[in-house]
């Protein structure tokens, strides 16, 4: 870090006589007051709920009833619950397909936007709009686009003579899964494209020129220059993307509410349905807690990505 040299000024020896005055003169005391609002909010509304969620998952709490400790009963119950396993499968499928496609299309779009095109900044601003608009509102637009009777896609395909009847987009399990995955990709691509574009713009053009003079093909240039230099950013961006796709709630809730026959239930939506709508807080909390191992795995991947970055830019491994 640039200001590493400036960290040497250790706290000046406090000159007060009593312990109280010494404490007031130190950096720790100033730091305490500066950190207080953040610590209060994050402590009361983030750390405490996180722990309380784990505790709730070991109780039989219902809405309006505190509940008592019942050990692993909620988890045993979930272990034998087909709907829970279906939701785990759905979540993994949803995350895997959506993340891979989002990454592919996002990287492709970033490479396109990095080319010399007219109205570059305008195009970039337009690309980001799906990410700015509230997810629920665009999900409702997709709900209407995928309507069973008035779908514009059915209408177009019918008039092109490809299909005879309307497609029941959100009424058939596999079709519904494909539709929500498409909507998720649609919303996620701009984020990935714009952040990767920012990474691409830090790659010096002279590297590409040198490689071209050495006779490298476009594919070699991409594979040997662009990709390695982009890896650190890809690691972080994809961690975020996987994290937020895995815990997605609002898109599903607005489009299908987990239907048809639970085919699009993700762990988050199932947790809401069991925990809030049915009132079994304990069971809902157990489903939410079951997501934690996956999230830890995602954070672990990000950590290793960051380590490689420190090594790549010539720094020490932290």
């Amino acid at each position, binding site marked *: 870090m640039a200001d590493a040299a400036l960290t040497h000024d250790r706290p000046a020896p406090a000159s007060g006589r009593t312990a109280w005055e010494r404490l007031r003169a130190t*950096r720790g005391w100033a730091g305490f007051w500066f950190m207080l609002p953040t610590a209060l909010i994050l402590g009361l509304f983030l750390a405490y709920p996180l722990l309380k969620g784990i505790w709730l998952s070991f109780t039989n709490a219902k809405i309006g009833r505190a509940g008592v400790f019942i050990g692993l009963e909620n988890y045993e119950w979930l272990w034998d619950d087909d709907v829970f396993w279906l939701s785990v499968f759905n979540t993994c499928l949803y995350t895997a397909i959506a993340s891979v496609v989002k990454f592919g299309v996002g990287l492709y779009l970033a490479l396109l936007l990095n080319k010399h095109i007219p109205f570059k900044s305008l195009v970039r601003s337009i690309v980001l*709009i799906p990410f700015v608009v509230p997810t629920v509102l665009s999900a409702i637009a997709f709900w209407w686009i995928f309507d069973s009777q008035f779908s514009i896609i059915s209408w177009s395909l019918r008039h092109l003579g490809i299909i005879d009847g309307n497609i029941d987009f959100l009424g058939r399990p596999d079709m519904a899964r494909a539709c929500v995955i498409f909507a998720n990709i649609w919303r996620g691509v701009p984020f990935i494209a714009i952040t990767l574009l920012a990474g691409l713009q830090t790659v010096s053009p002279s590297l590409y020129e040198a490689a071209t003079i050495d006779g490298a093909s476009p594919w070699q240039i991409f594979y040997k220059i662009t990709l390695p230099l982009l890896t650190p950013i890809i690691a972080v961006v994809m961690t975020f993307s996987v994290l937020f796709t895995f815990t997605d709630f609002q898109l599903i809730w607005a489009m299908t509410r987990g239907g048809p026959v639970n085919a699009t239930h993700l762990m988050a939506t199932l947790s809401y349905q069991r925990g809030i709508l049915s009132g079994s807080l304990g069971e809902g909390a157990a489903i939410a807690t079951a997501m934690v191992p996956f999230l830890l795995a995602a954070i672990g991947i990000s950590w290793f990505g960051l380590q490689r970055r420190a090594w790549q830019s010539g720094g020490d491994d932290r």
Partner: protein
Amino acid sequence: MRAPSPPAHADPTLSAATVAPAPLTDNSEGMAYLDKLPRRIVTVYLPLLVILAVLLFPFYWMALTAIKPDEQLIDMERYNPFFVVSPTLKHIQKLLFETQYPRWLWNTMYVSVAATALSLFASVLAAYACVRVRYRGASWVGAAIFLAYLVPPSILFIPLATIIQAYGLYDSPLSLILAYPTILIPFSTWLLMGYFKTIPYELEECALMDGASRWQILVKIILPLAFPGLISAGIFSLTLCWNEFIYALTFLSSTQNKTVPIAVVSEFVDGDIYRWGSLMAGALLGSLPLVILYSFFVEYYVSALTGAVKE
């Protein structure tokens, strides 16, 4: 004005991320002159147009539905659904005068602005303390705040609902104003730490010698210099609040307290086949303020988005 760049940066990727709204335009033409126009049309413009069309179509469809008369909406044989004949403002009028939509819009704005202000206040202090006060363990606290960014609302909403209930905040906008900062503070703090690091130490030392207190340094020197960072964090936080769904869905119950995303999903959804017009009008009006705000602050928004990821 932009914060002065750091005197000497060891890490080139870091400096690119921390400098105020980075000019993301690339002025050099590079090797683009090697590509001839017909080739560029096939490899660049065509794919770009297809992707843009797919990205924008839902908004066209949303806007079109919002101004289409009902009979054209359900009769797709007589009218071409891709266009509208004799558009109507009926749906929007119904939305504004027969439902509580203005109230919901006001709720959304009120909650977003209050939560953003609260989290900016907290994260300015936290970021300054982590970067410049450098109390013992500051770097660990910085890492912990980043980890907090990775805790998704989906695993917190059930325990948080019981806590909100216990504090007596259920069905009150205050519950959201206090809960949203948990999403915003980690991100804003991280972003502002980047901006604060770019401000030279010497400025603070001068102020200290002139007898300024920590608070005066923060308010009179650091904040004016980090102003672009504040705008970035503020804009991004506002859009995140506007977007938030699961907390609002869980904590609010009465119709007049709802925010736009919740109200649109829960109040308009019934079996009526004529609901689509007002539903789309609701989605359109709920998105427009955000898109307009975004269009004024694109650069700040992008720098918030990329800055938070790059750090």
